[in-house]
């Protein structure tokens, strides 16, 4: 087991190295980073140096004048020694901006995950136990509609109904106009109030896949021999479904949910941007569009690590939950 984990970790490290190499070269190749923009602005000032001179100076200043490979190795060294540099776009240390924003995304992600589990799994089970019934069709269509719904369209609809027509929520932002005047409890409520629509959006869009996953796995289990045995024993349907079938369905469910835990930190890039919620996704979006290489590199590395970690956790959980699986 330990050997397996160490092997997987080392393997993940190698993948991380290459993933970030590709991303680093890509970012460096693009002629549109923040430095170029700044250099262009500076060079247009009256009596200024030329664009090339400014660019050279800025690149030297930010350590971007080395070759791709050397630059990458240095970035890698800095990344692992915790020296993440300063964000060009936000003009604060990358790690500071990261700390300011990631927890909001995490809280949002956690709430969404809880709702997702509460809603999707029971519906998936119901759909599977009544296969081809009206309920099953409804659940299937609703789940697929949730998957097919464009985030921005759904968010706009919610905004139209709840912000414009009913006036219950603000269109954008995390805090209201009078946030500063509120008490601590009031500030908390204000933030919670502003998070309602983003969370609803994320929940509706994400329950579909979990619902279908639950249904598929439940169906598979329901066809198994031991379910027939349980029924043949004369157990009542409730016991068959919730004691025998559901517990076996839990194996893939726990695996996939465990694997998605690191993803809670990654933030919802599109949704946060749509609602202007200053989580890690929104922050990263603006950094990336603004050509902020240090922040983008950090964010992308962070996401890559979360993905690798998620895969690892899923595999380990699979072995932990299902005694039939042996890790080699």
């Amino acid at each position: 087991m330990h050997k397996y984990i160490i092997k997987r970790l080392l393997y993940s490290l190698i993948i991380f190295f290459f993933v970030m190499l590709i991303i680093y070269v890509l970012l460096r190749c693009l002629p549109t980073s923040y430095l170029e923009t700044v250099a262009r602005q500076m060079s247009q000032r009256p009596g200024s140096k030329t664009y090339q001179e400014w660019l050279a100076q800025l690149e030297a200043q930010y350590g971007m004048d080395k070759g791709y490979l050397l630059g990458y190795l240095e970035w890698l060294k800095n990344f692992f020694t915790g020296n993440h540099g300063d964000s060009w776009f936000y003009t604060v240390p990358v790690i500071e901006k990261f700390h300011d924003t990631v927890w909001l995304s995490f809280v949002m992600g956690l709430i969404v995950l809880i709702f997702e589990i509460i809603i999707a799994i029971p519906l998936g089970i119901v759909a599977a136990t009544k296969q081809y019934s009206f309920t099953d069709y409804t659940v299937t269509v609703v789940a697929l509609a949730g998957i097919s719904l464009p985030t921005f369209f759904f968010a706009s609809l919610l905004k139209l109904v709840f912000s414009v027509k009913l006036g219950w929520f603000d269109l954008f932002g995390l805090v209201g106009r009078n946030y500063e005047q509120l008490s601590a409890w009031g500030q908390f409520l204000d933030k919670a109030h502003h998070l309602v629509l983003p969370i609803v959006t994320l929940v509706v869009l994400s329950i579909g896949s979990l619902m279908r996953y639950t249904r598929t796995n439940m169906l598979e289990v329901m066809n198994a021999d031991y379910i027939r045995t349980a029924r043949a024993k004369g157990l009542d349907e409730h016991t068959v479904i919730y004691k025998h079938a559901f517990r076996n369905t839990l194996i893939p469910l726990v695996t996939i949910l465990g694997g998605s835990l690191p993803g809670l930190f990654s933030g919802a890039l599109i949704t946060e941007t749509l609602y202007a919620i200053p989580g890690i996704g929104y922050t990263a979006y603006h950094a990336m569009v603004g050509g902020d290489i240090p922040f983008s590199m950090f964010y992308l590395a962070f996401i890559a690590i979360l993905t690798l970690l998620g895969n690892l956790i899923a595999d380990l959980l699979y072995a932990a939950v299902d005694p039939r699986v042996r890790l080699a």
Partner: protein
Amino acid sequence: MNDKKQNDLLDKNQKDQSELRDKQAAAAPEQSGQYALDDERRVKVLSPGAMVAKRFFRNRIAVVGLAILTAMFLFSFVGGILSPYDEAQLFYTQTLQKKEYAGAVKNDDMRFLAAEGQDFGSIIQAQVVLALTTNKDMVSYKGVDYYVTEEGKDFYSVALKDGTVIGIAYKDVVTSSVEGQKLDFEFVFNALKAYTNGEHRFQMSTVGAAYTIDEGGVVEAGGQEIAFISRYVINPIAPDIFLSRDFREELAIALEAGESSFVFKDADGVESEYFIEYKPDVKNWVVRQETYTRTYDRYASPSKEHWLGTDKNGMDMMTRLMYGGRVSLVIGFIVELIALVIGVILGGLAGYFGDWVDFLIMRIVDIFYCIPSTPIIIILGAAMDAMGVDPQIRMLYLMLILGFLGWPSMARLVRGQILGLREQEFMVATESSGLRVSRRIFKHLVPNVIPQLIVSCTMGIGGTILTEATLSFLGLGVKFPFASWGNIINDVNNTFVLQNYWFIWIPAGILILLTVLAFNLVGDGLRDAFDPKMKR
């Protein structure tokens, strides 16, 4: 419930049929010999494809999906041809706009006019003003005395000692009614004298003509308009505007009465309303004419000409949606095709050869799996924005990027299937019959994976359309002048559009939702239909 009943019915039907067939079969040998293989005796089997089709069409939801997809294709590809408009055809409309037309100022300063051949310099003028304010009737300058006589209200003449009038000072402005014609001093003098004294007629001794002046200050001679007297100085705001005398008169009356608007019919008989606004800071009036101006027909509500109205550029929304559908669907297909080709080749090689080839390709797949695709696409989109890539080339790049990021899952799928298939007997048969490796992989292995590939591609197209729409919505995907469903909705970022113009964004959103949903439903139905283990 309904379903079950139908199933039972179906089963019963089949049973009846088979019973019938048995009876016929039993009867057959007596008629046509025991071993004849005619239609009656042949066992009816469906080809695998027909089986799949039969299973697929039994799934009502999948059929609905197929119907939606067909409708979408017709809408996008045929609709674009049938639509009377072009993708980027602009529409114009006439809107009422208040345009600045003329300026008016009330003349409160003395104006001066020198008599012909006389010297009436500015210093004397200043002296005259001074004399008037101090109620003197004589000014001296450089030893010459000038006598100021009040000829009428706000109208003074300046004369030398011998009675020669050298000039006049006045506040009511005399404008010639005939364009370009200058009024001579004598006429102005006589007209003003009559006007300021409230007289309605005057004679000019030199010419011998008789003139009349009406209340509004119009000077006529024999029914012909000569000039117009008013306290207001009225000028057109732009050089191409000619203000007729009638207009000036009308305006002067309106100004005198303190009205804020008046209607005036010009020489061509066009009636328009004019709005007068006083600007206290510069002490003048601005006159605005309300006229019809040709503008882009923006955000026009749905009508007979434009079934879904027009967008912010004045283009027909319905037509934009049709062309947008083309772009979205074509991008979906091409991206999936790129992913498919790369995925099948690499997955096929990995699955067939195993060993180090498999290891290498699968590690590349792992790496690509780990690359955060959404952020990368956003970064590339923003970069293309900044580099000003041509919209058409940009669309191509977008397809390449999305396709290139999509192949790993395809490769994984193909490889997984092939790993299981390559150990089977038919592969041993191909090997022993000495087929080429490429033929073995792509002719014998890959076709066995095709069902899974079709399912995966169908759902993948839906996903790609969604990704493209999201990117275009963020302004990083398909760009104007090309339409795509995503960039049509993009306008909803403008809160005013969100609140007021549902027809700008709701139809496009519904189209995306329906199309993606239909792809998913069809994919789902195909998966069930391809799976022989499925009961139905």
